[in-house]
């Protein structure tokens, strides 16, 4: 679950404690200085908002999917909580005909929160399945609209089902004596929320979800099923949000449809965005900053021109300092941050990880070098009889290759020869009209891309797909996490040693998107090797490289493959590279395999010379 106990458990716990103390301490300080009831209420509201925003962060931050629906989940939880927690006398006044005999039911607030969370989670599962079906991924528009629809449905139902909800006007309110007194439940849940959010972020599921957020396709190629991780993130975040929402209802003492609608969705989103949606520290910072900004705006609007005793008199500002100024501030903050700093103040800076790197990790010693494996396991990749046509155009005719464990097999051919289509078939992106491919007789045709890599066929990408916001180490760690679960029988090598072998040790803490081209290529190779593959499929690994870089790449590919005992299937149009690296070569031309054999045999073949070097070579 957690690759490194110190980094992923101990420090997040310490970090959560500090974060909690800073937020709560800051709030206490503020209310002590002002010393009035409204300051106290403001701080309480801020603490509850923090719970809900942290809950939303678990989903949006880790998956990159924008959700308005969490406030809809909050509405469900809020109503369930209210209906269970308030006294039957109060219910007789407000909702005397509640269905399911709810009018006479009463449970303690704590039990009501648990019921609210449980009911909401059921809804979350249903919505989560819908999101998965819509192919939700980072930035996915359809997913966002589904969540928006959820927000509207809950609002609509709350308005038009007065028997249960008290409808639009009255709502349901508590007897005075039952409102939330003391902050203990809020503080407890807030700390728990921080802890859950941070531990999830460091957990296996959290890291895989973030990998998919950064690059869905690459994550799937590394054996990650993003939909599963998104569901985990959704359920956890809904638990936190519905707990927080119940407290919100408890504290206010009543619930109305509009309390959990557009305005609150906007408020919580702005808080999350301003601080930095990819980090829990950012979410907490955003809550503090926006609470302060809104309070300031509210005072400016209400008191005319006085802030904390300082008079800002002057008629010229009349047109700005008006009532409702704080809602404009929200919108302006949202657009301003989107334009100038879409990742928020902190981007994905996380306090406990910074702490770990500065004081917790100590000096890192260079890991041990890896030895190349002596014995190569008997394994074979076979693709045969593959036919693909697009409309009337036959892209592949009866194409097939065989590759054995430890062997490097090259595929070469001019543009339009069908190389890319062939790669797309054996990576599961194009469905062939006929033909099969397998590793050791395990049929792989028709499998999802994450199943292919779990079965041992791991690919790299022609146009480099790294997890840009993750560090070099984290990139490899993601693959290693998947490998330790799905590739247990194979050579799952140490993450640090792999970095050393790939020449990336000195760059281990840098983000992948900051790497230069050569290092990025090496990282992609190391990441694929970390999957402990039976076969690595390298798609044009030298594209964009100079001749000398291509030659160094030959050694690196050989070495990494031998380190994990993998066979290599490499596609390239660079004749020098392919003949230099391959044990055997398949030549594709016009969708057919026209020749195969050792580099020397292939080079001597007249058809190859004709196809590859032009017909002049024959005459």
């Amino acid at each position: 679950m957690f690759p490194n106990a110190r980094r992923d458990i101990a420090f997040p716990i310490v970090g959560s404690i500090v974060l909690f103390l800073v937020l709560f301490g800051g709030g206490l300080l503020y209310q002590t200085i002002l010393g009035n009831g409204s300051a106290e209420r403001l701080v309480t509201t801020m603490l509850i908002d923090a719970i809900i925003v942290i809950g939303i962060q678990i989903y949006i931050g880790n998956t990159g999917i924008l959700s308005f629906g969490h406030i809809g989940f909050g509405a469900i939880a809020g109503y369930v909580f209210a209906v269970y927690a308030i006294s039957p006398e109060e219910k007789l006044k407000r909702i005397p005909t509640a269905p399911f005999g709810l009018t006479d039911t009463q449970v303690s607030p704590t039990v009501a929160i648990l019921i609210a969370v449980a009911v909401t989670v059921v809804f979350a599962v249903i919505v989560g399945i819908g999101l998965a079906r819509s192919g939700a991924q980072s930035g996915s528009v359809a997913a966002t609209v589904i969540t928006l629809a959820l927000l509207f449905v809950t609002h609509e139902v709350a308005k038009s089902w007065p028997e249960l909800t008290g409808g639009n006007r009255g709502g349901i309110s508590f007897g005075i004596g039952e409102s939330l007194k003391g902050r203990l439940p809020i503080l407890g849940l807030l700390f728990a929320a921080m802890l859950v959010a941070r531990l999830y972020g460091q957990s296996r599921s959290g890291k895989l979800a973030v990998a998919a957020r950064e690059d869905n396709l690459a994550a799937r190629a590394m054996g990650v099923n993003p939909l599963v991780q998104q569901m985990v993130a959704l359920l956890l975040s809904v638990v936190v949000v519905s707990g927080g929402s119940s407290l919100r209802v408890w504290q206010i003492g009543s619930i109305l449809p509009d309390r959990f609608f557009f305005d609150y969705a906007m408020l919580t989103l702005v808080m999350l965005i301003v601080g930095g949606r990819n980090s829990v520290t950012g979410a907490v910072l955003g809550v503090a900053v926006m609470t302060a900004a809104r309070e300031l705006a509210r005072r400016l609007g209400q008191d005319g021109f006085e802030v904390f005793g300082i008079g800002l008199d002057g008629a010229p500002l009349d047109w700005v300092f008006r009532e409702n100024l704080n809602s404009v501030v929200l919108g302006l903050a949202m657009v301003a941050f989107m334009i100038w700093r879409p990742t928020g103040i902190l981007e994905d800076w996380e306090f406990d990880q910074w702490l770990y790197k500065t004081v917790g990790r100590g000096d890192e010693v260079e890991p041990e070098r890896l030895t190349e494996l002596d014995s190569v396991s008997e394994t074979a990749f076979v693709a045969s009889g593959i036919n693909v046509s697009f409309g009337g155009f036959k892209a592949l005719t009866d194409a097939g290759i065989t590759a054995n464990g430890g062997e490097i097999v090259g595929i070469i051919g001019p543009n339009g020869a069908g190389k890319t289509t062939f790669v797309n078939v054996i990576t599961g992106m194009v469905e062939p009209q006929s033909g099969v491919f397998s590793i050791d007789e395990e049929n792989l045709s028709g499998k999802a891309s994450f199943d292919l890599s779990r079965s041992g066929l791991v690919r790299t990408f022609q146009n480099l797909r790294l997890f840009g916001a993750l560090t070099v180490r984290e990139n490899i760690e993601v693959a290693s996490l998947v490998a330790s679960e799905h590739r247990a029988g194979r050579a799952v090598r140490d993450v640090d040693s792999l970095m050393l072998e790939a020449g990336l040790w000195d760059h281990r803490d840098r983000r992948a998107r900051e790497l230069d081209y050569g290092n990025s290529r090496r990282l992609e190779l190391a990441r694929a090797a970390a999957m402990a593959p039976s076969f690595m499929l390298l798609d044009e690994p030298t594209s964009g490289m100079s001749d000398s870089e291509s030659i160094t790449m030959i050694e690196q590919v050989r070495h990494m493959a031998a380190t994990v005992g993998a066979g290599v299937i490499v596609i390239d149009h660079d004749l020098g590279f392919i003949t230099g690296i391959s044990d055997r070569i398949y030549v594709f031309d016009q969708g057919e395999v026209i020749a195969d054999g050792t580099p020397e045999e292939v080079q001597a073949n007249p058809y190859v010379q004709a196809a590859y070097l032009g017909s002049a070579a024959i005459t």
Partner: protein
Amino acid sequence: MAELLQNLIDGLGRGSIYALLALGVAVVFGIMHLLNFAHGELITIPGYLTYWAFNNGWSWWTVVPLIIVSAVISSLLIERVAFSRVRGAKDFTMLLTSFGVHFIVSAGFLLYIGAAVKPYPRPGWFADTISVGSLNIEVFDLVVIGVTAVVLAATTWLLQRTMFGLALRAAAADFDTARLMGVNSDSVIRGAFALSGLLAGIAGVFWIMREGQVTPTAGINPMLQGVLAALIGGLGSLRGAVLGGLVLGLAEVLLRSWLPVGIQNLTTGFVFVMIALLFIFRPGGLLSVPQVERV
């Protein structure tokens, strides 16, 4: 039978407005991959102008062009001030930018005009009906359907037969290639926003007439219907957007007439649930546009 026919006409009338809104959403989405949550503001802003105009003695004859022109100008202005700065940004960023714009506009009206409902008179013929046999057809529905048909025909002509339409379609298919082929990206994006605003303005005329009042949050419903209709049809498909709008309008009207009396209030909820089911079984919408990710 008569009731069904009546509902169909009613649904088509509603659906036509949605179709115009959805088409505007789809035009912008196709070109810059921006799902415009601020589209409804192209009705809120003209809505307040309508209120202002009637207080200053205007009539519907002059208000109708005011609505259309102000919607186009608002659309261009919003593009200039906000969306032009996030061109090419991640989808997440663009989604929230448009959401933020929606919020600023509605909060601005709240700030300067207040939350109170601002009424204005509907046109005199609004409630007129024509009786055909046992049918009572609302003149308003007929006008909406007729105007929408003409507007859609004109839009089709614009997209298929003019240089601007060609540039727009090319840019929607592949923005970078279109630019390399000499399509001016600024003018094609501005053109798309102008067209989107024009369509919203025409839809806005009917929407504003039907509502008879305006509030700061008046844009939420048209935005939601437009966005949902575009999604039902299949995002990126212009024909899909029109189809989605009509389907949404028909679904609303037919559901309302079929649901038992007690739960008619929940029509909107049921429509949403049906949309959710549609996404589950047909994630790309009715006319899905194949999206192939390049590797």
